[in-house]
């Protein structure tokens, strides 16, 4: 065992932790050797920032990632517990505050939490286990190699001796930590915990209604705020009847916040602070504001649609990819297809509306309780916008009632802080958005338009693909210059399938300027590109008179790996995709079943966020056009190990139904720069009766790194369902949402 600098870090951590909070700089081993703010100075073995074992054998593990419903607060601690070899029943999980020095990166986005932490977390557990083994071996005067561990105890089989970890913590705390990179990890075949179905660590609190979410925060003397922004993003308040509002029951103050021009930051608005949420909401109903709408007021969805159609006849402003000669290939093709696809702006609509509690202390320090996916960015935005040094900001990461990418933005955090800064008596303030705020002031998934042309040859092979993608961009200012920045998910990668696969492929892009704020929405880009491209591939397959599965397998080709053609691009593991595609097809009985008119199967696949997923959907469309999804078969490859089978199945089922909900119902209209829809009565989401009768999940195991599952199973759902609708009715869905498309047949 090495006694390298890691042990020094650990010793200084222990020495300091007795005195309370501390930070230790990153060592060569990064988070593995880093210390943490000590939760309590109770005795025990604290080998790193994530693990504390007490004398009674109880194990406290810290979850550093924000929990938004993806189950990370359960799954990553499970990884430590597996390698530490402790009984899950003895484990308690606590949420860590924002502390990058102690924990390393802390953000829940891009399905990155698992791939970025899985190996490190195994080593965290294994390192601690190695020290406990060493402590037992020394006690018994035997070689560590003769000892094994099981269920939170070290065993020496030859002498039939056993020491529980709790009895070893004092000895272990005196030993140096081994170099994390050198410790032996378990053979995955011997995993006891990983791969099992484990319930979420907060489930007991959830089902009994205990305070858990950001909106549940209550502090002594806390006030409640509403923040009213211009209905047109980019607009600002000129004047308001503040005196009248201040005189209303329970209102403590009302004031204008000047804000900034950053559409994703502190937008200008009017704050109302009251003694209860309802007193603030009631007062808001009496608020009258004269707004300067700004330039966004001229925009409408109808106008954007007309502009997109016009632009489609012109060359794109950006040529993303130009392989071969698309025009010549189309001219020479046996059959060609031309189609325009479009989808609207949509909201994240997490069940818990955006909220944040902020408290400016008398010394100017700021304490935040934020249901956020991106605490580090939130702290940075607050620091920059409100002029508070990062060192003076404490950020508590609070469980979020849904994320879906919405809480990667930090607008609600900076709003709460700006309001708290105005509190003369330094009262803590909880800002709660109404549902109307949440729907109309989201950072929306951008809408988009795809103008496609494709061709197949006489043998029924795809030979040409042309897409002009019309997307949306905001004007942003930086260092005195303004430029257009595409919305999140509103940029097409030249490498997006089937780019790279066709000899004649031309991809162009043009952005329409808008003032609607945009942000990442579960599987950004992929969530809509998969629908467009796999629908159009289906159109080509049918034009060629080919089976949609065979057509796709031929398109994917025989090679196992498709290298990237763009900088920082990713290789596409074609073998993994073929495997999930064939698995989904086989399990669904693709090509082996006969369907009556009005019923059918559709197939699609998509690679995103390092995950390979294929789906087969079966639908029934009634003659009056009502769609019912009878069954979805999902095959996913996210590596060799499923950490928490229950959590993984939840993510797949949730992604499938989220994909279906988004396909079927929600759409936002924009008129005079304003979002028209305001609440769940006119912004519909799928309800239980429309959930599929059956979702069947298969995990294809590959010898590749373990990766995330919060996003990859969503994109293939929409095209699989729409392709099934075509098989059932002969009607091709090219515009969303589905509920507005006439699918009746006779």
């Amino acid at each position, binding site marked *: 065992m090495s006694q390298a600098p890691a042990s020094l870090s650990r010793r200084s951590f222990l020495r300091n932790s007795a005195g309370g909070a501390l930070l230790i700089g990153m060592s060569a081993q990064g988070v593995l050797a880093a210390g943490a703010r000590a939760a309590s100075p109770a005795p025990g073995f604290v080998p790193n920032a994530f693990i504390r074992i007490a004398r009674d054998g109880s194990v406290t593990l810290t979850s550093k990632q924000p929990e938004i419903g993806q189950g990370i607060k359960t799954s990553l601690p499970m990884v430590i517990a597996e390698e530490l070899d402790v009984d899950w029943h003895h484990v308690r999980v606590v949420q860590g505050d924002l502390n990058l020095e102690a924990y390393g990166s802390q953000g829940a986005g891009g399905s990155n939490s698992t791939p970025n932490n899985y190996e490190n977390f195994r080593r965290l557990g294994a390192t601690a286990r190695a020290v406990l083994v060493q402590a037992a071996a020394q006690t018994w005067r035997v070689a560590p190699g003769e000892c094994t561990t099981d269920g939170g105890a070290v065993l020496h089989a030859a002498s039939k001796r056993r020491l529980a970890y709790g009895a070893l913590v004092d000895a272990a705390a005196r030993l140096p930590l081994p170099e994390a990179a050198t410790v032996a990890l378990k053979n995955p075949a011997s995993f006891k915990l990983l791969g099992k179905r484990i319930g979420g660590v907060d489930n007991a609190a959830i089902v009994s209604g205990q305070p858990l979410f950001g909106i549940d925060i209550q502090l002594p003397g806390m006030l409640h705020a509403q923040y009213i922004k211009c209905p047109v993003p980019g607009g600002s308040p000129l004047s308001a009847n503040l005196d009248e509002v201040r005189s209303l029951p329970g209102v403590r103050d009302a004031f204008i916040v000047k804000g900034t021009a950053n559409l994703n930051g502190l937008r200008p608005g009017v704050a109302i602070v009251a003694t*209860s949420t309802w007193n603030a909401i009631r007062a808001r109903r009496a608020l009258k504001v004269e707004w300067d709408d700004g330039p966004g007021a001229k925009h409408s969805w109808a106008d954007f649609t007309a502009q997109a159609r016009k632009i489609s006849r012109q060359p794109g402003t950006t040529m993303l990819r130009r392989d071969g000669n698309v025009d010549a290939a189309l001219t020479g093709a046996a059959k060609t297809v031309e189609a325009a696809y479009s989808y609207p702006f949509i909201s994240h609509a997490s069940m818990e509306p955006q909220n944040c509690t902020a408290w400016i202390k008398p010394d100017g320090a700021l304490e935040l309780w934020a249901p956020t996916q991106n605490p580090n960015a939130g702290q940075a935005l607050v620091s920059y916008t409100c002029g508070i040094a990062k060192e003076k900001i404490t950020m508590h990461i609070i469980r979020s009632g849904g994320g879906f990418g919405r809480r990667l933005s930090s607008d609600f955090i900076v709003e709460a802080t700006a309001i708290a800064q105005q509190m003369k008596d330094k009262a803590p303030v909880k800002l709660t958005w109404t549902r109307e705020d949440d729907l109309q002031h989201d950072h929306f998934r951008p809408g988009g338009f795809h103008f496609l042309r494709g061709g197949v040859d006489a043998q029924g092979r795809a030979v040409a693909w042309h897409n002009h993608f019309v997307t949306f961009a905001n004007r942003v200012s930086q260092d005195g210059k303004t430029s257009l920045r595409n919305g999140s998910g509103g940029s097409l990668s030249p490498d997006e399938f089937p780019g790279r696969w066709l000899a004649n492929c031309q991809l162009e892009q043009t952005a329409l300027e808008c003032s609607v704020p945009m942000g990442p929405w579960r599987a950004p880009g992929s969530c809509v590109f998969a629908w467009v491209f796999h629908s159009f591939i289906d159109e080509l397959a049918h034009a060629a008179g080919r089976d949609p599965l065979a057509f796709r397998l031929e398109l994917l080709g025989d090679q196992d790996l498709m290298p990237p053609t763009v900088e920082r691009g990713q290789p596409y593991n074609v073998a993994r995709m073929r495997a999930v595609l064939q698995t989904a097809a086989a399990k669904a009985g693709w090509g082996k079943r006969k369907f009556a008119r009005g019923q059918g199967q559709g197939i699609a696949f998509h690679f995103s966020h390092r995950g390979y997923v294929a789906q087969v959907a079966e639908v029934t469309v009634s003659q009056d056009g009502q769609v019912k999804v009878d069954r979805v078969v999902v095959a996913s490859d996210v590596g060799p190990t499923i950490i928490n089978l229950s959590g993984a199945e939840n993510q797949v089922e949730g992604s499938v139904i989220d994909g279906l909900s988004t396909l079927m119902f929600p759409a936002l209209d924009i008129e005079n720069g304003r979002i028209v829809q305001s609440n769940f009565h006119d912004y519909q989401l799928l309800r239980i009766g429309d959930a599929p009768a059956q979702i069947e999940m298969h995990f294809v195991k590959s010898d590749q790194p373990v990766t995330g599952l919060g996003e990859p199973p969503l994109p293939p759902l929409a095209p699989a369902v729409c392709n099934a609708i075509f098989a059932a009715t002969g009607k091709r869905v090219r515009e969303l949402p589905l509920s507005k498309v006439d699918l009746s047949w006779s």
Partner: protein
Amino acid sequence: MSTYTLNVNGKDRAVEVEADTPLLWALRDTLGLVGTKFGCGLGQCGACTIHLDGVATRACVLPVAAIGRQKITTIEGLDAKHQHPLQRAWQELDVPQCGYCQSGQIMSACSLLKQHPKPTDAQIDDAMAGNLCRCATYMRIRKGIHRAAEIAASEGKQA
């Protein structure tokens, strides 16, 4: 402001609020019972579902002044030990994802089980149509209600 005496989870509680205050906010801000959730404020999402004399009711559109002596049950008071068959089934099957809507789901499901101790999928879909789950835990909500019905039946009590 007026003082109202509300019977919440079997106890009389005095709340001093304006007459138009929805029960949701009296529970959350005044009584500190935050298990009942705010989702829409329009009775559209069901996150705020409580029982009024045993019947599932949306607390976000129910003014405190309209309640009188009706008995209010919230998720915190569904079972003294939080071991209601639905609460056990929800944990056994790991129903929650983000968990935000689940107290409302459980309160609606409880109302359903009182009416139909052994509900069909169609009865579940019908009774639960007013409760949105944005994480889309619907498959497990269906299973969870069936499982709770089973637990209640095996223990010979009403869910």
